[in-house]
């Protein structure tokens, strides 16, 4: 009875499994043999956006596309590319959106200007408040 139920369960589950008919690329779920290269790849993957997910890096996702991107990152690192070269290649393909690491540009300068202004404002606030009585 239990075996029958399990069989039934697997049959019902089939359509879900069928959604991803192509097997994941080899290095999607496999680490590089060289631990130094793997660490580099891992660090890079944590700063690349999974384009199919909501706010997850490709290092945190089961999405097939994230798997493909992990594969790409690992084989490129293994073939001797530097992490920044790999990032550049991905940005060229998918746009700035794919990289979580912010670069100072015409579109992103407020992200850097505002914290700098905050530091100044905070400093000014303290100076004005405490200069006479400190």
């Amino acid at each position: 009875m239990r075996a029958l139920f399990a069989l039934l369960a697997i049959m019902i589950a089939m359509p879900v499994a069928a959604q991803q008919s192509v097997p994941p690329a080899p290095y999607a779920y496999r680490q590089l043999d060289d631990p130094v290269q793997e660490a580099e790849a891992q660090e890079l993957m944590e700063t690349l956006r999974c384009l199919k997910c909501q706010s997850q890096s490709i290092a945190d996702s089961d999405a097939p596309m994230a798997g493909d991107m992990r594969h790409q990152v690992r084989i490129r690192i293994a073939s001797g590319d530097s992490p920044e070269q790999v990032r550049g290649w991905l940005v060229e393909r998918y746009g700035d959106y794919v990289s979580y690491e912010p670069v100072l540009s015409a579109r992103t300068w407020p992200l850097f200007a505002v914290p700098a202004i905050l530091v100044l404002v905070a400093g000014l606030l303290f100076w004005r408040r405490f200069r006479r009585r400190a």
Partner: protein
Amino acid sequence: MIAEIGLAALWLAAALAVLQLAGGLAALRAGENSDLAALTRPAAVLQGGLVAISFAMLLWLFAITDLSVKLVAMNSHTAKPLIFKLSGAWGNHEGSMLLWVTVMALAGALIAGIERRLPEKTMQATLAAQGFVALGFYAFLLLSSNPFERLPEPVIEGLGLNPLLQDIGLALHPPTLYFGYVGLSVAFSFAVGALLTRNVTPDFARAMRPWILGAWVFLTLGITAGSYWAYYELGWGGYWFWDPVENASLMPWLAATALLHSASVLASRDALRVWTIMLGVVAFSMSMLGTFLVRSGILTSVHAFAVDPERGSFILILLGLYIGGALLLFALRAGTISEGERFSIASREGALVVNNVMLSAILAVVLLGTLYPLLTEAFDVRVSVGPPYFNPVSAVFVFPMLAVMAVGPLLRWRRDSWSRISREMALTGALLLVALVIFGVVSQVALLPLLGLSFAIALGVASFLPLRGRNLRRVPIAVWGMVMAHFGVAVALLGMASESAFSTERLAALAEGERTSVGPWAVELQAVEPIAGPNWTAMAARMAVSYDDGEPIEIAPQSRNFWAPAQQTTESVLVTRWNGQLYAVVGSSSNDGRWQVRLWWKPLVTLIWYGGLLVALGGILALIGRVRTDLKRRAAVRKGAARRLEMEKVS
């Protein structure tokens, strides 16, 4: 019939919110004893009762799975366990809005029933603000998101609930955050009441403080639980993604933390009046932003938002009205409040001001990082702001704040000298230096985790220094609360830094009977077996894991397939030891019959959530301490009044 009762109760509650608003306005114009003003408190109590009935009706509809109601048909399923049927009531847009306004109206009923410290006029203005905020929610529910809408034809089966959400933790997670948001809205109502009647006093801060503390405890618990949920449910070992939805709960927490400290200064020293009011306004704005932005879908994508422009515009108008109105009121009235008592930088207040500024700056960074991508997306420029931005930029403000946090509680109110606490400061500084050298030079840890580890250790010790030389049995409960909460921050920080510095990962494709290892763990995949649950089937991977050649433990992570709606999830297994967690996940099989196995060894990772719990516990202790002191004071005042009356009679 049940749905109609619920809807009718909701309309009546909305009408009472109008009455509450009118009553408060009448109090401002004609004085607290006018006929209309006297109705404010009863209206608030009745409104609470009615909206509670309305929410109970919604729960009832979900419990019996009434498929003629659109909301039930869209979000529930007859085959679901009862607890998830009930949690389905608030696991959707309409239901969660109703829950929000229910909690808010009940809170309003509570302050209308018991809060008697403040002048009556201030209370009525407070309740009017409360009614005004609630009114927006009622309008939103009744005009654009009616939870009780019927379908023309009942459906045969519901559409189900996202299987990721069928989890007890997640069933309780949104209500916890909502309690926090609502607590902040009550604090805001007090701030508005005090602003309108020009009555920003220590008494006002004392009346507001339990609500801030309560809200803060709920937010802390909500964030901690949400983070743990993401950690074990998503199956990749991440616990914080700087996702806009997470930030939406973090921002109110940051504002509430600042508000809490500022209100403490106002309550005990009558200083920082304007700061407290401003933080009250900001904390409320952040909770509105949190609630509405998450619900509007704008955070996922500006384009998702445009799919339902009617609801979206409604939300934007409400947000603009509330936040804009609150800021406008603050701008108009802030000038009439004097700053209050002065103090020097080497004082408890000075340290608190520094930390409030730091917290506000962190809040600004998170807000900017969350909203900036939305802003550029509106102009068709897609930018990603993620951990590589948030971590270092917020660290610029976090670490100075932690340093002040270690020293601040040691200082006296108003005016103190650094030399008085030089020994404690030297001890903390020495700990920091030693830790920096050990982890930085010897273990070669990267900069941010290195600072995290070192500050955590120094702060962990420093957080107990305020107790030095005191009779521990006579230390007030609220002080224990502070010590506990500060220690909790250090503990959570240690967990985060350790996770980041010392985690090891192993991805492997294993056939049955093969072995692998991760950190100090040896792992053997024994067998993979199919199993079935009430609304899912799964492949369970039986593994034997042993720590450092010890006794093997058997675990069985699963890869699950739900069928209503069809979705695949991973059920990870966590093996917790005192010094960390083993995290095991099984994925799908490859063509050669091997199974993808993901393993992590995360030293001290559990401290993140234990720290969160300690922080919340500290908040609870502080709350108990404050409420007890207030009750004692109330009893003393009553006794004094009775004695005076007696004396008058005698003479």
